[in-house]
């Protein structure tokens, strides 16, 4: 009786998919160059995508990429639209309440960026009176409000990191807190980033874990049996050199972090 009812439900849903297939459905939000983005001919690419393929190769499944907007990433996972998220998702405590993570597969530190003539010490002294733009709802915003506000800096939240760069350019901001890879390629390497530099220490020390989590991991539903095989796969590609090959394809430094 139950089987029959289940069969009816499947036929009502436009496509019933077996949960245990050969395909591993991987969610990405391809708007985060160079980790996940799309080439001009519409193919998903980037460091996350390559890592996903390397993991799939190890666990003998075929990666099928599903594009999903960031806002509905976790609901989509819970609704079983896909099996895992491999899209530069930080493993924060809030997220760990609702989903499981693998071990980290990379961890790029966030950094403070201000004009290069501003003197900033290791405890972020010297930022008094400076206005820093951050992405609203981001780990960097939490850090800035938790640490830099007490040092006398003003923290201004923005809807998108692009807008932060625009406002630095127009002179309304003195700097930002952002992922070092993002701010490196999106701002420092561009003409408008001239005269700006990283300030203070790199934010991947233990004392900042409470803001930034412990790096990026593969996200899956709570209690999913995929966790062990994926952790093993990450260990294997770290050991056999395929990780390094992918790392060097995109970066001039080690993104795995400490």
């Amino acid at each position, binding site marked *: 009786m139950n089987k029959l009812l289940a069969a009816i439900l499947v036929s*009502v849903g436009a496509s019933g998919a077996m949960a245990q297939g050969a395909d591993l459905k991987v969610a990405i939000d391809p708007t985060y160059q160079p980790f996940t983005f799309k080439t001009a001919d519409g193919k998903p690419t980037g460091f996350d995508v390559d890592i996903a393929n390397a993991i799939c190769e190890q666990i003998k499944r075929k990666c099928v990429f599903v594009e999903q907007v960031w806002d509905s990433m976790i609901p989509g996972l819970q609704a079983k*639209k896909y099996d895992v998220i491999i899209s530069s998702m930080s493993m924060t405590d809030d997220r760990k309440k609702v989903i499981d993570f693998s071990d980290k597969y990379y961890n790029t530190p966030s950094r403070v960026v201000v004009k290069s003539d501003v003197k900033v010490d290791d405890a972020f002294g010297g930022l008094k009176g400076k206005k820093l733009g951050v992405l609203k709802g981001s780990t960097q915003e939490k850090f800035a409000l938790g640490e830099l506000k007490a040092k006398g800096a003003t923290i201004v939240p923005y809807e998108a990191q692009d807008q932060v760069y625009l406002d630095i350019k127009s002179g309304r901001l003195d700097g930002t807190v952002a992922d070092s890879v993002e701010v490196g390629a999106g701002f420092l390497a561009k003409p408008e980033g001239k005269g700006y530099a990283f300030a203070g220490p790199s934010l991947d020390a233990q004392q900042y874990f409470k803001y930034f989590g412990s790096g990026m991991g593969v996200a899956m539903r709570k209690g999913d049996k995929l966790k062990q095989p994926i952790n093993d796969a990450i260990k294997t590609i770290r050991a056999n050199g395929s990780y390094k090959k992918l790392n060097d394809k995109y970066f001039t430094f080690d993104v795995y972090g400490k």
Partner: protein
Amino acid sequence: MTGYYLTILEGAALTVAVSLASLLVAILLGLAGASAKLSGRKPLVAAATLYTTLVRGVPELVLMLLIFYGGTIGLNALMEALGSEQTIDIEPFAAGVITIGFIYGAYMTETFRGAILAVPKGQMEAAWAFGMGPLRTFWRITLPQMIRYALPGFTNNWLVLIKATALVSLIGLQDMTYRAKQASAATREPFTFLLFAAGLFLLYTWVSLWVLRRVEARYSLGTKRGQL
């Protein structure tokens, strides 16, 4: 570079398809809702009032997430409870069309209700006196006259609906706004692609305004200009 423009154009086709299909759903729901509200039967009036109050009071984004993800999670939990290994996947296009149609049906209900009220009651009474049934009265007498009154509000709803289709990217459909965002992220040139998408939206609304003006002219035949 041109590749990105092409993918945005593909997204534009999806936007047009979603908006037109949603409009159809919204019109049907709007007519049903308006008839229910004007029927004078208590349960029907109550149901329609609940519908318009609830839907117009809750943000579209929240409704979209609730219906699509909430619905799927609920169905899958039910499947698990029934002991099935399979998972249900609601087709995103249908889900997007139904959700947007459901939301804008509530706005259409009010637009159509106002338009029907604007048709003099004597028109319908005359039709009944000729022995026309309720359906025939609606098609022959009420509908052709209410269209003129409904059009200004209808046009507003339609323009807002077109822009609301950008929400379908939340449920995994790649409409033109989402494609434009992807292109700007990949190239780090936000304005180029967002302006292109904005231009396409403008073209689409401009064409629909032109069509709606023609419809308005057609249904205003026989009425003096500036009479209202």
